[in-house]
């Protein structure tokens, strides 16, 4: 049973590393990094309580926001989806990613107290 599961995972991993362009793997690792940054902050909040709540929200939302924006970038720059986003070149998508991140950081800094 566990053999089956591990072999399935093995297969999935090989197919992922074979078929995914490196530029997307770059984004994927970035996403995992963001995900764990958010999880650790959440654990901290659960351990010590919500005070100061605004700082927690700012820190946590910065990870959530970054995650969403990076995920969008991945969707829009994925060559598999090129048909769906004909009018949006990868560069255009990156420009939007940068702009949205700057706006996000501005709000986070505003809110973190």
């Amino acid at each position, binding site marked *: 049973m566990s053999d089956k599961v591990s072999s399935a995972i093995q297969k999935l991993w090989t197919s992922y590393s074979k078929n995914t362009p490196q530029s997307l793997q*770059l984004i994927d690792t970035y996403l995992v990094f*963001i995900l764990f940054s*958010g999880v650790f*902050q959440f654990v901290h909040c659960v351990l010590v309580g919500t005070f100061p709540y605004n700082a*927690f929200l700012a*820190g946590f939302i*910065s990870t959530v926001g*970054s995650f969403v924006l990076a995920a969008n970038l991945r969707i829009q720059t994925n060559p598999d989806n090129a048909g769906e986003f004909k009018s949006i070149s990868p560069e255009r998508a990156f420009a939007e990613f940068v702009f949205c991140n700057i706006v996000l950081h501005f709000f986070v800094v505003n809110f*973190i107290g």
Partner: protein
Amino acid sequence: MRCLLFIFAFVLAVGVFRVEPRSTTGNRVLVLLDKEDDKALYSKFFNSLEEREYQLTYKLPTDSTVDLFSYGERAYDHVINFAPKTKNYKDKVNPLSLLNFVNKGGNILLGASSELSETMRDFAREFDIDFDDIDTSVIDHFNYDISDDGKHTLINAKGITNNEAILTKNVIEGPPVLFRGIAHKVGTIPLLTKVLWAGETAYSYETKADQQVDQEPLVVGNKVMLVSALQARNNARVTFVGSTELFSDRFFDSPIQRTNSAESFPKSGNEDFAKDLTKWTFQEKGVLKVTSRHHHKENETEELELYRIKDNIIYTIEISEYANDHWQAFNGTDVQFEAIMLDPYIRKTLTPLPTSPEQQARKYKAHIQLPDVYGVFTFKVNYKRSGYSYIEDSSVVAIRPFRHNEYPRYISAAYPYYTGAASMIVGFLLFSAIWFFNKESSKIVKKKTS
């Protein structure tokens, strides 16, 4: 020389025309008497009032020309009612008009006797004072004076208030007061102050010799009130004296000695007592006023209408007392400050600051940390003490919560969140840089290039 003469004339003029009333409210007194001749009974008393620059107008309550008001304004500042027997008061001086007079700030000294008419009883009831029935007297078989006529009603008052706002110390400790008259019972309203009462063996009843007390008297013992003082909410004062004889020349000059007691005084305490009682009633003493009030933040001086929660402020109030014909620093030590929003949140006794003799008011001060509740607060000094005119000074301020930038910052508990946010920003920059210059490694076979 001419100059000197001028100064002399000026001083003389000032001396002659100085008719400034001693009372803080005025010097026009209406005296109501049962009959014109009664004036002679109280000549010493009335003379002493005239010496204190009061203008006395003598009237009968049945006189149709008597009117407490002219064009809706008080025509007199004070009323002395020494007409207990009169039943048919004219409308202009009936209990209702007298009440109106008090409501407009006039002061009343009411003298009663065993023949007190129902009219004045009605008036007294408005002030929670109940005079005993007609023909009753205060009787005390233990404390009558040696000059009593066998009725045991000429008594030496046993209990006297120690309130120095009303009576001076030498009256409180001096010879006893001679009293012959009617008893009254006081209610429990806080506006009333007991001034003079009987001993524990006294009672109030009719004085027929062949009779036995078979119904419970209205009042017995030290509940037998002889003199009571009331200060209305508007600071008007009404004093009830169960005996007009207390003010008579006879009682003023009478020696006083209690039966079965060796202690005797050549002169009763009545004259000094009457003087203090009228001084108090006619607002010559025990009058307080607020001369200034200020509040500001610590280390600032400006009075604000808007403070922040938990602000440290300084509250000061200056209170002046009228005594001995001039305004002087008040000596009370129990003035309290309150910060109220529906309920008091803070109540604090203010510290009296020392004054020099020439200062006419004393400053009271407190350091206060405002509560951590925001809203519209009233800063109040509500000083109500028996014998003193009431002080109710209030100022309204708003108390606001912290502004967004007044909260504590860089809290240690938030360090992980700061780190997280910084981590996101650095990560973003690094990711962007790599995205620009990353050369796709060729190990991946592109599917869509064909």
